[in-house]
């Protein structure tokens, strides 16, 4: 019992950073949101991404980082979002 009291008192003084459950929750929420996004993409997504990149690179001088491809699944339809930053001299 005394041990219990002492640990309660210690808990009271414990810095909020040591409340590791909060950290765990935040980390989980971020990684799971990310993984769910990846999971919703169809199997052909990654092949599509690669081929699109090749086609665009054939005609313009862009790097892999200039092109963002994303897919969002919604009710009844999915949206393929293609975001390309072309160099200023086309």
């Amino acid at each position, binding site marked *: 019992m005394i041990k219990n009291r002492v640990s309660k008192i210690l*808990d009271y003084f414990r810095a909020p950073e040591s409340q590791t*459950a909060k950290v765990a929750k935040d980390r*989980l929420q971020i990684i799971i949101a990310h993984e769910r996004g990846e999971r919703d993409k169809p199997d052909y997504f990654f092949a599509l991404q690669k081929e699109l990149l090749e086609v665009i690179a054939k005609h313009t001088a862009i790097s892999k980082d200039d092109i963002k491809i994303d897919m969002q699944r919604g009710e009844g339809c999915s949206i393929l979002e293609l975001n390309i930053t072309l160099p200023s001299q086309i």
Partner: protein
Amino acid sequence: MAKIIVVTSGKGGVGKTTTSASLAIGFANRGFKTAVIDFDIGLRNLDLIMGCERRVVYDFVNVIRKEATLNQALIKDKHNKDLSILPASQTRDKDALTTEGVGEVLEELSKTFDYIVCDSPAGIERGAQLAMYYADHAVVVTNPEVSSVRDSDRMLGLLSSKTKRSEEGRDPIKEHLLLTRYCPKRVTRGDMLSLADVNEILAIPLLGVIPESQAVLRASNSGTPVILDQESDAGQAYQDAISRFLGEDVPFRFIEEEKANWLKRMFRFKEKEATA
């Protein structure tokens, strides 16, 4: 039609077999004809937890390979005649289970049983995928710990895409969260993810919360699933989970730290004296 329930988790050692054994006994004790199948090929353990390890003659793989009939392989539970156990094989052959073979066994079982509980192996390999493939319900066993929660979410993804129901575009598998090895005390201290945290992240209906309990080890030592230990917190929590599965509205217990423990203990002591 039988209801097929998979007990799954992704991560190993979180309590799937403990849960499968207790759920199976729970259904049988409520009068349902129940079968429980060990899908952990190569690592048979459900037989030990159910206390029937010395009565195993034929196993799941023998039935699939037609080396034995289903009736020869099924073991009648010693606690309840309405419960039968289909043990896993100890073979190292990874391809011993086939989609068709498992399908046939489940179809045959469906003719006589009301509930079929499938104890999944850990991981996402064949055994785990086949354990969930034909399921109508999934009990996702999760510990309040980061890797377990993440793996559970991964399993939810597979449940909604890699099962017969999803392939056929039928109603999705009904998912149930079972949070096990829960320590309210550590939650209060901020050391453990809380029930609310896990619930918020996984966002599926909560079937039960099983506390971390010494009764679980005692139960496996003696081969009597913990749900039969009616005095124990874990046993009662499993009973509650069964009630909820059957549609009863029961409050959650063992989720708050017990306050004024000494007072309770004193009363219990008094009670014991009185009955002595």
